[in-house]
C-alpha cells in the first residue's frame, strides 16, 4: 500500500518534471526560432534576389524564377577575372603561410631554448593586434619600396598577417603529436627532415588541413588589404570588385550583385563545412582560448 503510494507520487513527480522540461524546451525553441529568423532575413534576401529578374532591396518572393542574374555575371570581367585574382592572391598567401608556419612550429614544439617562450609570446601578442591599424603605414612603406600594386607584395603581406595565428595553431597541433614516434624514426636512422615529412606531417594532416582552410577563408574574405595595396582594376580580387560593383550605387542591378555575391561566398562556405567539425566548440582561437 505504502509502496504503491510512493510509486504513484514518484510517477507524478516524473510527469511533472517531464512537462516542465517540455515546456522549457518549447520556450527555448520558440526563442531560438525568432532569433534564427532575424539572422536568416538578410540571407534569404540574397537567395531570392539572385533568382529574381526584378530584384529590389526587400525580401519578397520573385514573380518568376530565373538564372538570368547568374548568367549575366558569369563573364570574364565581372566574375572570372576577380575570382581568379582572389585565387592567386589568397592561394599564394595561404601556401606561404602554411609552409612557414609548419616549418617554424616544428623546432618550437620539439626543442627547448631560453628565447622560445618570449618568441611564442610575441607571436601570440601579434595575433591580437588590430592589423587594420598598420594598413596606412604598410601603404606608405609599399609606395616607398615600390611594392605597391604588385601581386606578390600584397600576397606576402597577407601571408605575414595570417602567420602569427597560423603558427600558434600549428604549434598546438604539433604538440599533440607524440614524440615517441619520432624517436623511433631517429633510432632507425632517419634524418630530421625525413622525420618531419614522413612521420610528423602525415600525423598532423588533419591539423594542417584546418590551418590551411582557416587561413584561406580569412584571406578570401579580406577586403582592406587588397583595397589598399592593389590599384589596377584588372588585378583586384573579388572582395574589392564586389565593393566597386555596388560602391557606385546609382544604377545597381541588385539581382546580379546578389548572384555574384553568392558565387564569391560559395567557396568559403563549402570549405567551412569541410572543417566545421574540427572548428566546433572553443577551437575558434586554438589553444589561446582554452587558456
Amino acid at each position, binding site marked *: 500500500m505504502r509502496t504503491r503510494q510512493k510509486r504513484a507520487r514518484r510517477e507524478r513527480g516524473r510527469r511533472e518534471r517531464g512537462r516542465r522540461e517540455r515546456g522549457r*524546451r518549447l520556450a*527555448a*525553441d520558440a526563442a*531560438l526560432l525568432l*532569433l*534564427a529568423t532575424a*539572422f536568416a*532575413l*538578410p*540571407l534569404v*534576401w*540574397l537567395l531570392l534576389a539572385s533568382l529574381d529578374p526584378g530584384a529590389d*532591396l*526587400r*525580401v519578397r518572393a520573385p514573380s518568376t524564377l530565373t538564372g538570368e542574374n547568374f548568367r549575366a555575371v558569369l563573364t570574364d570581367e565581372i566574375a572570372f577575372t576577380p575570382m581568379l585574382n582572389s585565387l592567386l592572391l589568397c592561394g599564394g598567401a595561404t601556401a606561404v603561410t602554411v609552409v*612557414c*608556419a609548419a*616549418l*617554424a612550429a*616544428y*623546432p*618550437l614544439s620539439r626543442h627547448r*631554448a631560453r628565447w622560445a617562450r618570449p618568441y*611564442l*609570446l610575441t607571436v601570440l*601578442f601579434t595575433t*591580437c593586434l*588590430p592589423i*587594420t*591599424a*598598420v*594598413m*596606412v*603605414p604598410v601603404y*606608405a*612603406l609599399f*609606395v*616607398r619600396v615600390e611594392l605597391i600594386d604588385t601581386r606578390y607584395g600584397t600576397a606576402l603581406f597577407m*601571408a*605575414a598577417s595570417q*602567420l602569427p595565428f597560423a603558427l600558434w595553431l600549428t604549434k598546438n597541433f604539433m604538440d599533440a603529436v607524440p614524440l615517441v614516434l619520432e624517436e623511433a624514426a631517429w633510432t632507425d636512422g*632517419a634524418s*630530421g627532415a625525413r622525420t618531419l615529412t614522413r612521420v610528423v606531417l602525415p600525423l598532423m594532416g588533419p591539423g594542417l588541413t584546418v590551418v590551411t582552410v582557416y587561413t584561406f*577563408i580569412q584571406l578570401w*574574405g*579580406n*577586403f582592406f588589404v587588397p583595397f589598399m595595396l592593389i590599384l589596377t582594376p584588372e588585378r583586384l580580387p573579388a*572582395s574589392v570588385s*564586389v565593393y566597386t560593383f*555596388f560602391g557606385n550605387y546609382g544604377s545597381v542591378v541588385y539581382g546580379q550583385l546578389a548572384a555574384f*555575391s553568392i558565387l*564569391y*561566398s560559395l567557396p*568559403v*562556405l563549402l570549405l567551412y563545412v569541410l572543417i566545421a567539425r574540427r572548428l566546433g*566548440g*572553443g577551437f*575558434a582561437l586554438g589553444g*589561446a582560448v582554452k*587558456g
Partner: protein
Amino acid sequence: MSATGGRWRWAPIAPATVLMLLFLGGPIGYCVWIAFTDTQLTGAAGADFVGFENFRRAFADDAFRNAVWLTLVFTVVSAVLGQNTLGLLLAGLMRGASRPVRSVTGSLVIAAWVLPEIVAAFLLYAFFRREGTLNALLEWLGLPAQNWLFTLPILAVSLANVWRGTAFSMLIYSAALAEIPRDVVEAAEVDGARGARRLWYVTLPMIRRSIGTNLMLNTLSTLSVFGLIWAMTRGGPGSRSQTLPVYMYDQALVKSLIGYGTAVALLLLVVGALFSVVYLRLMRVEL
C-alpha cells in the same frame, strides 16, 4: 634528445621570422617613425620630424574626438552588449532546445560569420536601406519606417557587426557551458537556485574566464572593423559613423596626410596592444 644537428635544428623558424619581421615588424616600426613626421602622400622625401605635433593636433581636432567617441559606441554596443550577450543567450537557449532547431539556428548564425565581410556589408546595407527589408517589416507591424542608414548610422553598422560577429561568442559560450559539471547544476537546483539566480550565482561565475576571453577578443576584432562600415556608410552621412579606422583611412589616403593618419593608426595600435596585454595576462598563457 635530438638526432638533428645542434644549431641547425632551429633553422626552420627563419622563413616565418623573416616574413613577420619584414611585413609586420617593419610597418609597425615605420608607423612609430612617420607618426612623428609631417609626411604627406606626394612628398614622402621631404618629410620633417615634428615630434608630438600630430598627436597634439589629433586631440585638438573635433573630428578625431568624434571618431574616438563613435569607436567607443560601436565597440560597446556591438561587441560588449551585442555579440557577447546575444552569443551567451544563444548558447544558453541551445542547451534547452530540440535538436533540429539547435542545428538550424547554429548554421544560420555561423553562415553570417563565415560570409566574406563585404558580402555581409552588402546584405545589411540592403536590410537597413529606406526601401529595405527592415522597413518592410516595420510597416507590416504598423510601426513607423525610417531611413536607418541616415538617421542612426552608427546603430545600423553596430547591428550589422552583431549580425556578423555573434557566432564567435556563441561557439565560445557553447563550449564553456558544456564544461559545467552536471552535478553542480543539480546541486544548485536542489538549493532552489533557478532562472536568473542560477545564472547569476552559479553559471556566470563558472564561465568567467570564457567571458573575459570573449570580451577581449570581441573588443579587439571590433576595434579593427573597417570594410563593414566603409561599404555600408563610408563613415557618413557626414561623419556620423566614422570610427577610428575609417577616420584614419580618410585622413591618410583621401586627404593625403600620411603622417597624421599614421599617428591615428599608432593610437589604435597602442589601444589594441593594451587590450592584448590584458588578454594575455587574463589567460596566464602557459607554454
